[in-house]
């Protein structure tokens, strides 16, 4: 069993190590017995723990507030896929197809916004076969030193698709290959520090906060989160 996916969970409730493949297996076998890391809240504001090297800022969803309206998809797409109109660069028309954040809706009603989890152990970058640049230390896929978002160097990327597979097999499957170039897309950009999805969500379901890794549902595929939340919300056994 590879230890590539293991990292320490910075949560006082749980000091266990976890491996997501194990986790998926457990969920599949006996969903009802699995306790999801024992975390109680979704966001773990860093407070005074700024020195924690694994603490970073990202988009966090409060699933209980999301109504599935997909406004986030349209504003993400508009901001990150700008259009040149009469020589002027303007926000796009918000085609959800190009959005980095995606809403997955279920029956019974559960709506799961899925954006890049910026996983501290970045299996996508691990999977990138392009040699590290001796100067910058970056592979084609790399973590931006300032914002910690995952970026792709289009010039060096070979379009091998390893990162796509890694994200799909080990995490939530956010990274999608471009249909023409096969190069990775849909990594969250944090919109230059002003995430549009957070700004425009009509329901306040998204926040841009400092988090610690090992939060509940981090990097977990939407299907599995939905399954767990359906059980919690719609079950009458409690």
């Amino acid at each position, binding site marked *: 069993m590879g230890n590539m996916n293991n990292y320490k969970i910075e949560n006082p409730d749980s000091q266990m190590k976890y491996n997501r493949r194990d986790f998926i297996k457990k969920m599949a076998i006996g969903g009802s017995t699995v306790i999801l890391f024992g975390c109680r809240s979704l966001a773990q504001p860093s407070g005074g723990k700024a020195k924690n090297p694994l603490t970073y800022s990202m988009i966090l969803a409060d699933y209980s507030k999301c109504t599935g309206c997909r406004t986030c998809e349209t504003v993400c797409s508009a901001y990150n896929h700008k259009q040149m109109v009469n020589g002027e660069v*303007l926000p796009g*028309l918000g085609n959800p197809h190009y959005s980095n954040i995606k809403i997955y809706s279920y029956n019974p009603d559960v709506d799961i916004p899925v954006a890049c989890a910026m996983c501290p152990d970045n299996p996508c970058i691990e999977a990138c076969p392009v040699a590290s640049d001796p100067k910058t230390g970056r592979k084609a896929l790399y973590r931006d030193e300032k914002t910690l978002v995952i970026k792709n160097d289009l010039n060096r990327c070979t379009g091998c698709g390893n990162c796509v597979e890694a994200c799909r097999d080990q995490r939530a499957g956010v990274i999608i290959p471009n249909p023409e170039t096969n190069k990775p897309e849909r990594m969250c950009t944090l919109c230059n520090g002003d995430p549009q999805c957070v700004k425009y969500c009509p329901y306040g379901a998204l926040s841009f906060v400092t988090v610690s890794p090992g939060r509940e549902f981090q990097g977990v595929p939407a299907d599995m989160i939905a399954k767990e939340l359906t059980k919690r919300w719609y079950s009458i056994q409690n």
Partner: protein
Amino acid sequence: MAHKKPGYHGVLLDINLTTGKSSPKKISSQDIDMFIGGRGLGMKILWDRLKKPGIDPLSPENPLMFMPGPFSGFPIPSSSRTCVVTKSPCTSPLHSSYPFASTVSYSNVGGFFGPEIRFAGYDGIVITGRASAPAYIVIDNDRVEIREAKKFWGMGTDEFDKKFIEELGDRRFRTCYIGPAGENQVSYACIIHTAARAAGRGTGCIMGSKNLKAIAVRGSMIPDVADHKQFLAALEKANQAFKGISGTLLTKIWRRSGTAVTIERSSKKGSMAVKNYREGTFSEIDKIGADAARKFWIRDFACFCCPLSCKKSGVIKNGAYAGLIHDGPEYETGTMFGANLMVSDLEGLMKAIFNGDDYGLDIISTGNVIGFLMEAYEKGIIDKEFLDGIELKWGNIDAILKMIDKIAKREGVGDLASKGVKALSKRIGKDSEKFAIHVKGLELAAWNVHVEPPKGICYATSNRGACHQSGNTVEAQNFRAMIDSIGICRFTTDWGHWYLPGLGSDNFSRILTAITGIEWTKEELMKSGERIFNLEKMINYREGFRRVDDNLPDRFFEEPLSVGSEKGAVLHREKFSEMLDEYYKIRGWDPETTKPGKSRLERLGLSFTLQDHQI
């Protein structure tokens, strides 16, 4: 390729289920300018395709259309609506030389289907023909496939919703489908979307007649707009409508209770359908209203880009139906299966709503039909044997559930009941037509009319039969025809009143101008609404609908309310007739025949309808 109009793909997806062939068809530029999209463009296509009156609605020739509008797919608040347009399987005129004469039918549904049709590269889907075996359609941008649906035939909508998306393998497909009621061609079957939203009033019956279980759509395109910068500015302005004091108040009310907020309010006002419309107030209304339902509501959910999230889903926590998960009650479902049937058992009511939705029945018509049967049974006009042994008494939820089963499966009494209240009363006779609550054959909805004569005008003159959404005045009818055509939800609008919160005509004209590049004024928008309403009327007129069909059931004129704050309220025939005269005068229609006047039709650009020798 011809020049595309900004804001549109300029293309309809034309699918013939008999031949199994599909092809994109260009939409005439003039039709777009005159009929906008949605309900309006659908009606123009209906006119073009039907060509003559009297076509059997259940025949392969009757087109079934899914029509988004020019707002659909753009991030405009609640630009979520799709209008399903077809020829009605529910209605018929008093006199006509055509055995299959019926009105137009349109039904507006929210969710995500309309926007996705536009993402797939179409301004609408037109389905004709009949598949030789149960089928479903998958539309993935320009790839269209018709697949076998045998294994899904007979499946309830709740289970189908889950299984179908698994079969498609991508949750980003948007689907709509029928349940057993549609398959069995119950005349008032629905088309269901997301297991919670419905295009009602008989559209599901047409889908069933085509052997079509479901449609799935997925796409990646969006049309260009004429003025990008102006569009973004208009959008920004539209979003402001939901901010500030009045805007926040509007969103708060909708988010808190959805349409269920009016359940208790309407009963208090005497405007609710209670005991088959005999009364307007229900003494036990507090047991089935929003505040009672709140105890099991868990989540709010919204349609595409909507800030209102009026839908509520939850789980029944105890009693015989513990564990039942569903959304509602909403005003219509809660009233038609609740107050109208004297049901005060909220858990039982939710079970009935779930079953109705799962079968894919229009709960408005189903509740109306069951209310009629209950009254006929109480009066001794029909006996228990007629009801296949069901003890169909007011408030008896078990009996109601049994009737719902019978109707959806068209078993025994359910076969006759599946044809609607007009057909039922015709069969039963004995003056039962006095309490058969329909107009033109379509059942009235959950708003009663004793205390609100303009609502009577709305029901009587609506082009699809007794529709509560048509509008109480000529102006409201025109406004709503326009709203249904641009693809936006009425709940986000100011209902045509500038002093109410929500999006107004100034927003619509600004946005539509930016999208199309054509200077749309408020007046032009309203004129389009009038044009669309008149085209519908011309189709109905050609089928043989006249003034005698614009009538209300006797109950509202002969039996005053006997309980509630509005006790004694009743409509007066003469006054109502005068209101109708006034209505036709404003419309420019002949008060005797209701035929739209030549000059009015010419002014609206509808002269072509007069060239039809069949009128």
